C-alpha cells in the first residue's frame, strides 16, 4: 500500500522550450503562483523533484543549442541553480557517442535515496549513486547488441522513459527501439515488446524497433505497466513479457503522454492525438482520457478544457499526477497552456495560458519543510516586489 502524502502544498515544474517555470500552491490547489523563467532561453525537456533523504531538490536538463546539454539542480526551489564547469553527463570517449539531449531525469526508489537515473539522446542510461554528483553511462545498454539497429524517431534517438520496478528490475523505453528490461540491476537488458506493433516497419511485430512513447507503472503493482505507443495503447501484467491492446473506446490510440494514478494501479491517464500525420487532439477538443479499470474502458475528461477549435498537443512528459488525495492531474501543451485538476481529472482549470511551448510537466507534493521554505521565499519575494514591481501571478 502506498502512503498518501501529507499535502502541505504542491510544486509544479514546467519545462518549456525557453526555460523552466515553477508553479506553487497550497494543499488546496485552488490558487497557483508562478515563478520563472529559470534557465532562461534554454530548452528544458526534463525536470524532476527529489524529496528523498530530506532533500528538496529540483533537477532540470537543459539543452543549450550552442554549448551542449547540462544537468542542473536547485535546492532553493529555483532561486539559484548549480553550474558545474564540466558537464555532468558525458559519454566515455571510447563509445564514439556525444550527448545531444537529456530527455529524462528520474530519482531512484525511496529506499535507495542516492540513486538517480538520466535517459538521454543518443539512447543511453546514466546512473548516479551519489544523489547526482557523478554519473556513469550504463555499460550493458551502451554495448547492447541491438544498438546499431536502433533508429531515431522524430525527436531523435532517445531514451526517454525510466521505470524503476524494484528488486533490481528496471525498465527503459526509447524511440525507436522499444521497451527493454533488466532483471540484474542494469547489467544486462532484453527487449520486451511482444504484442507491441510497429506500424512503420514491414514486420509489424518485431523483437525490437518499436517506437514506444511512454511507459508507466505503479509501485504497488510493478508487474503491471501501461504503454503509449506510436499507434497503440497497451498493458502488461507480467513485467512487460507480453503486451495487450487496451485501446477500448479512445478516439485514437496515437499519443505521447501517459501518467499513472498515485494511489491506484488500475488508473491511468492519457491524451490521445489524432494521428502521426496530424498531431493534435481529435476533433479539436482537448480531452484527457482516464481508465479506472486498467484499460477495459476509458472516460473522456473535458470539464473546464476547451472543446472547440483546440488544436492542441501534449508531449510525452507533458502529463503528470501529484500524490495528494484526491490526486491532482496536470498537463501542458505545445501552445504554452498549463491545466490543473485537483479532483483526479473531473474538472480542470487553466493555470497558465501563454508560456513558451511546454515540453515537460512534473508535480510534487511538498513536505512541511519545503512548504515552510516556500512561504519564506514567497514572503521575501513579496517584500522585494512591493518595492519594485507587482507580484507575478499566473491568473
Amino acid at each position, binding site marked *: 500500500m502506498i502512503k498518501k502524502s501529507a499535502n502541505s502544498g504542491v510544486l509544479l515544474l514546467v519545462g518549456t*522550450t525557453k526555460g523552466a517555470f515553477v508553479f506553487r500552491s497550497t494543499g488546496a490547489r485552488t490558487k497557483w503562483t508562478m515563478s520563472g523563467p529559470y534557465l532562461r532561453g534554454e530548452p528544458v525537456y526534463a525536470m524532476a523533484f527529489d524529496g528523498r533523504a530530506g532533500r528538496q531538490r529540483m533537477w532540470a536538463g537543459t539543452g*543549450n543549442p550552442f*554549448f*551542449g546539454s547540462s544537468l542542473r539542480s536547485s535546492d532553493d526551489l529555483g532561486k539559484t541553480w548549480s553550474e558545474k*564547469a*564540466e558537464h555532468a553527463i558525458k559519454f566515455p*570517449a571510447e563509445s564514439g*557517442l*556525444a*550527448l545531444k539531449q537529456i530527455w529524462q531525469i528520474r530519482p531512484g526508489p525511496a529506499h535507495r535515496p542516492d540513486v538517480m537515473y538520466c535517459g538521454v539522446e543518443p539512447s543511453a542510461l546514466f546512473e548516479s549513486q551519489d544523489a547526482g554528483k557523478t554519473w556513469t553511462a550504463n555499460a550493458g545498454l551502451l554495448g547492447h547488441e541491438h544498438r546499431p539497429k536502433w533508429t531515431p524517431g522524430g525527436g531523435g534517438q532517445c531514451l526517454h522513459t525510466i521505470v524503476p520496478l524494484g528488486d533490481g528490475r528496471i525498465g527503459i523505453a526509447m524511440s525507436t527501439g522499444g521497451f527493454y528490461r533488466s532483471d540484474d540491476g542494469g547489467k544486462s537488458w532484453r527487449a520486451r515488446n511482444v504484442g507491441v506493433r510497429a506500424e512503420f516497419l514491414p514486420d509489424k511485430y518485431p523483437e525490437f524497433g518499436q517506437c514506444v512513447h511512454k511507459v508507466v507503472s505503479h509501485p504497488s503493482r510493478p508487474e503491471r505497466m501501461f504503454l503509449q505507443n506510436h499507434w497503440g495503447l497497451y498493458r502488461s501484467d507480467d513485467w512487460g513479457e507480453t503486451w495487450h491492446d487496451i485501446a477500448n473506446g479512445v478516439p485514437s490510440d496515437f499519443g505521447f503522454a501517459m501518467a499513472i494514478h498515485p494511489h491506484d494501479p488500475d488508473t491511468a491517464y492519457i491524451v490521445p492525438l489524432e494521428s502521426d500525420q496530424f498531431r493534435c487532439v481529435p476533433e479539436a477538443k482537448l480531452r484527457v482520457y482516464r481508465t479506472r479499470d486498467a484499460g477495459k474502458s476509458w472516460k473522456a475528461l473535458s470539464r473546464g478544457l476547451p472543446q472547440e477549435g483546440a488544436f492542441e498537443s501534449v508531449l510525452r512528459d507533458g502529463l503528470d499526477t501529484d500524490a495528494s488525495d484526491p490526486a491532482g492531474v496536470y498537463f501542458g501543451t505545445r501552445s504554452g497552456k498549463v491545466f490543473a485538476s485537483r479532483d483526479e481529472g473531473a474538472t480542470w482549470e487553466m493555470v497558465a495560458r501563454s508560456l513558451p511551448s511546454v515540453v515537460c510537466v512534473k508535480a510534487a507534493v511538498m513536505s512541511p519543510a519545503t512548504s515552510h521554505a516556500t512561504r519564506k521565499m514567497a514572503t521575501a519575494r513579496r517584500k522585494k516586489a512591493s518595492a519594485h514591481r507587482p507580484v507575478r501571478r499566473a491568473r
Partner: protein
Amino acid sequence: MPLVVAIPGPLQPYAGGRAMVELRERCDTVGDALEALGEQYPGVRDRVLTEQGDVRQHLNVFVDEDNVRFALGLATPVSPESRVTILPAVSGG
C-alpha cells in the same frame, strides 16, 4: 607574441571572466589551441567541443577571419600571431 583566443560572453564565466585568453603553449593547429584552452578552462572545452572532440554544431571557430569549417577543421594551422575566435552560430529558435 602569444596566440589569443577570444571567448564569447556566455562562456566567459567558465574562463575566469576573461574575454581574451593568451596561450603560451606551442600550438600548431586550432585543435592544439582548443586543447590548451581546455586544460586551463575545462568548462569552456565542454561547451565548445563534444565528448568526441568535435566542434559543437551551432558554434563556429575562426582563425583570424577564416571559419575552420571551411578550412581544415581542427587541423587548421595557427601561428603565435593568430587570433582564434569562438562564436555562437546564427541559429536557434
